[in-house]
């Protein structure tokens, strides 16, 4: 289907079904129950899942395929956000032109930065991208305040021209981002018994875009171009000896992944129309590296998985506090309860970064292929168990 082989089609369909049913799947616990805090099915978080999924998919096209570790990718996300908000300010609140301009702008920036940074490889490339991103962050924060809004960030105002739309709604409010009248923030709530499912327009919009980007990423992975990028990762020298110049291919990969980042930035701005420089800080670039590695660099589904895990932890684990912990372990004797809570407490709430860091280290040490490799190992272990029963059913492991 759509030029994909059977395995990829299945993967795409699974991802499509999962994202479309996310409001159900992420809300498995009824409202008001003790487990309700683990529900991730609220629009804000679901939007973040898919948006950062897009960001990580794009980063993976560069890092997973070519092996170039960029430490400044958040800069393109920031450029995308700023471009989108400017579109909202000047043109109209329709999200499509905003997204288009954001992708173009971030593509241009990626072309410029990539052209310079890709003259070097290895850690020098990482430092160059980091330097560019930090420079853009510092400038956005200080000198470019007229364009970027500086510390307060770029916000919409009632006095914005919005030549194709209205400056203000009939009630005198700032209009909200919409897709041809379909407001991004509008949601339908569906209550089934104790469960409450929220269907948010913005989420579904982002989800559809993520599916399209995911499809494009699969096509890139399977294309001759993707093959070239893998060749660059495995041995650039050999590629040059074959008479091929790797530079245009790496630059193309860099620009594509920059455009993905810009798209993610535009979607962030579409969901909540403001943009701040802190989105470009190097910790934000580090975050997308974490997501990609955690999920599995160079695999298709890995980055999306990593983005989901990290955003889930950021929003859910960080909300657990000591009272909740005491509630969970109330069945233990008093002294033991306090002891268990005292042990777990540093890892939750504000300490979720500690859990993240430990998890990340464990993944890098024991599972260099990320969570996807973990899944594959488990699957292989099961398959091996079956193989012992029926030795003739030996299957070859598909190369990922």
């Amino acid at each position: 289907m759509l030029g994909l082989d059977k395995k990829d089609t299945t993967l795409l369909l699974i991802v499509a079904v999962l994202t479309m049913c996310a409001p159900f799947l992420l809300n498995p616990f009824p409202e008001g129950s003790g487990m309700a805090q683990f529900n991730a099915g609220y629009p804000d978080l679901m939007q973040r899942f898919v948006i950062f999924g897009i960001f990580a998919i794009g980063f993976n096209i560069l890092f997973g395929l070519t092996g170039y570790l960029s430490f400044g990718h958040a800069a393109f996300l920031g450029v995308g956000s700023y471009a989108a908000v400017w579109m909202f300010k000047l043109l109209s609140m329709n999200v499509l032109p905003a997204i288009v301009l954001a992708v173009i702008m971030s593509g241009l920036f990626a072309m410029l930065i990539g052209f310079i940074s890709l003259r070097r490889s290895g850690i020098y490339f990482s430092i160059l991208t980091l330097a560019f991103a930090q420079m853009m962050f510092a400038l956005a924060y200080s000198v470019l305040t007229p364009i970027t809004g500086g510390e307060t960030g770029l916000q919409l105002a009632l006095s914005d021209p919005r030549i194709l739309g209205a400056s203000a709604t009939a009630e005198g409010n700032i209009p909200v981002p919409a897709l041809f009248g379909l407001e991004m923030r509008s949601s339908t709530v569906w209550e089934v018994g104790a469960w409450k499912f929220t269907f948010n327009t913005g989420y579904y919009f982002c989800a559809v875009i993520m599916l399209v980007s995911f499809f494009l990423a699969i096509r890139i992975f399977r294309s001759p171009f993707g093959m070239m990028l893998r060749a660059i990762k495995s041995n650039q020298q050999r590629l040059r000896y074959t008479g091929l110049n790797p530079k245009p291919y790496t630059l193309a990969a860099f620009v594509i992944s920059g455009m993905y980042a810009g798209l993610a930035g535009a979607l962030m701005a579409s969901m909540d129309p403001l943009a701040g420089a802190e989105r470009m800080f190097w910790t934000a670039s580090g975050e997308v590296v974490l997501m990609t590695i955690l999920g599995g660099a160079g695999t298709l589904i890995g980055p999306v998985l990593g983005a989901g895990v990290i955003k889930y932890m950021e929003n859910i684990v960080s909300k657990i506090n000591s009272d909740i912990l005491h509630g969970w372990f109330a069945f233990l004797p008093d002294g033991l309860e306090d002891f268990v809570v005292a042990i777990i407490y540093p890892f939750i709430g504000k300490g979720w970064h500690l859990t993240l860091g430990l998890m990340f280290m464990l993944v890098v040490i024991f599972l260099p292929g990320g969570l996807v490799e973990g899944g594959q190992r488990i699957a292989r272990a099961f398959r091996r168990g079956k193989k012992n029963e029926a030795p003739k059913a030996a299957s070859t492991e598909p190369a990922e």
Partner: protein
Amino acid sequence: MDAIILQILNGLDKGSAYALIALGLTLIFGTLGVVNFAHGALFMIGAFCAVTLSRLFNLSHEVEVPGQTDFLGNPLKKDVPYLHDIFGEATGSAIIDWSVPLAILFAIPIMIAVGVIMERGLIKYFYKRPHADQILVTFGLAIVLQEIIKYYYGANPIPTPAPDAFKGSFDFGAMIGFAENTIIYPYWRLVYFCFAAVIIGAVFAFLQFTTFGMVVRAGMADRETVGLLGINIDKRFTIMFGLAAAVAGLAGVMYVPINPPNYHMGMDFLVLSFVVVVVGGMGSLPGAVAAGFLLGVLESFASMREVIDLIPGINQVIIYLVAIIILLTRPRGLMGRKGVMED
């Protein structure tokens, strides 16, 4: 002229910190071939060694002051540090006052222990892995270390003063023949610079003039041959890792009075230190030190009012700008060797 000297002086203390961290990074990279993203965390742990020692010294118990009462009529109590009981009031106060310099002695064994544990416990297993994996695992370690510190010390900066003798500033201009009050320079920054110079000199002397240092340098040049000569080079490299950790830690200890430490100071310095290392040339010790001071001074020049008026925002980006220009014109940095980290 006086403005220029002032800016050079201002740049020296930050440059010293960059140079010390970059020196440690380069030591680790040159000996073990590992890119250590947790080096900023070592700097921060050093700073918190100073904080811890100062808190330990200030541990106190309440003593009733005879003959005085507070406004409720209860006997007035005052805190007396245990050190006063042990050493008497005058010596005790002096020790508390000098807690930051004394923390050097406290930090050296701790930092060497932390470094050796880190190398033996984690980094040892990453020699054969790609550089990207080393970067990532040490990045994870840095997050973990920083969160542990945050858990115990909180997220706010903790002011820890310098000894009274070094508080305040002095008129450097008057000493070298300028008009009075043109070049005012804080004492502690001068102390920091001298301290950094001593440490850097000591590290170089250690590598240059001792047998141990000679073997280490030989190992940096050709690890295999040194191993074939029957020398246990791994053990020496582990010690070098401990030494590099100690250098970073000491840089952190002495930096405490300049900037109150918080848990993410390591990361803030790490990014810049990496830029410094790359500008100096990966694997070159003199390059790292020179680039550290160079970038520190450039940064301080760029924050002069006249320069900012000329090129707005230059103070924010100068280091990165210089890094980009140097990397593009001198691909291996200022003093880099051929074939380092170019895979």
